[in-house]
């Protein structure tokens, strides 16, 4: 019996998670939880309440718009510059040193600087999110392009393929798994930064602001609703991206881990 459950990893961990949630609910029944830890049931309640009064959907939309705009700009810039640096020595020499010098800087530290110039606006926020999202995508696209199997390029040159074709049909395809991976990391990062930038400074709107307000006014319902919404958004975005990238890296996935 236990063996059968342990063999199905998802079932085992699902049961474990369920056990934790039941335990959590029981602790509430016996009043063992501090006031700011709501029980799973109360959290569900808060989610329904904030959805019905419209605050949660509104905040979610605001957050997602901010997150998406910053993420999109950063990721696109990362892909374009990363591929360019991977493919051209000139571009590499100009881009790579600057990136490796600025890479270890926590980009969120730029927020206070940007705020001096542009105030606590969504523009400032998106700018910082974009800057942060740029780096993982760039680094992965660059490395993915550089580590392409040289024999594959020989095969292409043997067929007399032109440079544009080699770029589009060979280099880009070969770099795709690495690029997808970089984008996945940036996607997770973009939610962290959305929360951080929305929490800082007044009247931001969005889920970060909702959590912050809940914290300040001791309104634990909205506080938890905001946290759960962030978790769901992060998970859903990751799943969507995972599915999408599996579509165009299909053969490479097969190569890496067998039949999919």
């Amino acid at each position, binding site marked *: 019996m236990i063996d059968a459950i*342990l063999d*199905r*990893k*998802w079932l*085992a*961990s*699902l049961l*474990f*998670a369920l056990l934790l949630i039941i335990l959590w609910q029981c602790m509430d029944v016996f009043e063992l939880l*501090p006031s*700011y830890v709501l029980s799973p049931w109360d959290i569900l309640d808060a989610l329904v309440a904030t959805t019905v009064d419209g605050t949660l959907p509104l905040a979610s939309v605001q957050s997602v718009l901010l997150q998406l705009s910053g993420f999109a700009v950063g990721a696109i810039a990362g892909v374009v510059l990363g591929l360019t640096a*991977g*493919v*051209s*020595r*000139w*571009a*590499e*020499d*100009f*881009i*790579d*040193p*600057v990136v490796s*010098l*600025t*890479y*270890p*800087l*926590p*980009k969120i*530290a730029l*927020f206070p*600087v940007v705020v*001096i*110039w542009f105030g606590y606006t969504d523009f400032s926020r998106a700018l910082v999110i974009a800057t942060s999202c740029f780096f993982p995508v760039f680094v992965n696209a660059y490395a993915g392009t550089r580590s*392409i199997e*040289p024999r594959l*390029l*020989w095969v292409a040159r043997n067929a007399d393929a032109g*440079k544009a074709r*080699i*770029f589009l049909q060979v280099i880009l395809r070969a770099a795709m798994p690495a690029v997808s991976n970089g984008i996945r990391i940036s*996607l*997770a990062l973009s939610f*962290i930064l*959305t*929360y*951080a930038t929305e*929490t800082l400074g007044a009247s931001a709107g969005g*889920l970060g602001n909702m*959590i*912050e307000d809940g914290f300040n006014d001791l309104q634990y319902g909205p506080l938890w609703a905001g*946290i759960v919404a*962030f*978790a769901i958004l*992060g*998970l859903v*975005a*990751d799943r969507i991206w995972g599915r999408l990238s599996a579509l165009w890296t299909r053969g490479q996935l097969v190569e890496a881990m067998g039949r999919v």
Partner: protein
Amino acid sequence: MSEKVIDRVTSTTGQEPSTPSGYRAAESQRRWARRARRTVAVLLPFVVWWTLAEIANNRLFPGPIEVIATLVDVTADGTIWFHAQQTAQRGLTGLAIAVVGGVFLGVGMASVRWMDSVLEPLVSATYPIPKLALFPLLVLALGFGAESKIVMVTLECAYPVILTTYAATRGVDKHYLWLARNVGAGPLARFGIIMRATSTSMVATLRMALPIMLVIMVVTELISESRGLGYLLRRASSDFDPELTMAVVLLLAIVGFVLDRLVVLLGDFVGRWAGKVQL
């Protein structure tokens, strides 16, 4: 598409001059040209920044010289040391807990069946959740002090550590472990073998976790604190003191760069210990 684009990956062989001396001259010329381009690449942003600042001539947009001078000032009079030390102390504590705990969990998940079944899907599934959003709860539980930040850093950094350790341990050649069992080595010795075999990927993880640590420290200190570099940033920013704000950013960049180099050095050392040089 321009001539230069794609050159580095499509031409595996350049036109080689046939005489050795001609080849060497061309080679060294190429090397110098690269070095020159790379130097220009590093200096160019500073020059552009300086020029823009000169043109703008605005108190809110100081040039690089003012910022560096400010950094030197606050370093010399000691104010920044206190804050830097606070940030480093907490961040590194959280990181250390994450690495030690994460390695044990990762190795455990990879070698104990029930841990694998119960924990691995859970850890993988919760990986993309922005854990930072839990920070207000940590503050409610642990207060505004060091503890909530250390736990936050641990929480965010542990994930990559656990998952890479898990993958690396599972990738350890089974034959090593069979051999160890065969000669009657105990579990401690087997753990030692796993550590040796996975040490390089462990250092790579540390290199991944380090920037996460810095981000979390800065964010949490920006949100709520009366000490640390993040706090200094927030105060300088709300005082409309761009010179100090940028000086702190510069310091953070330097700290991040130095820490990263240290990890690379550690990687060389560990690589030699483990019998392969990587990273």
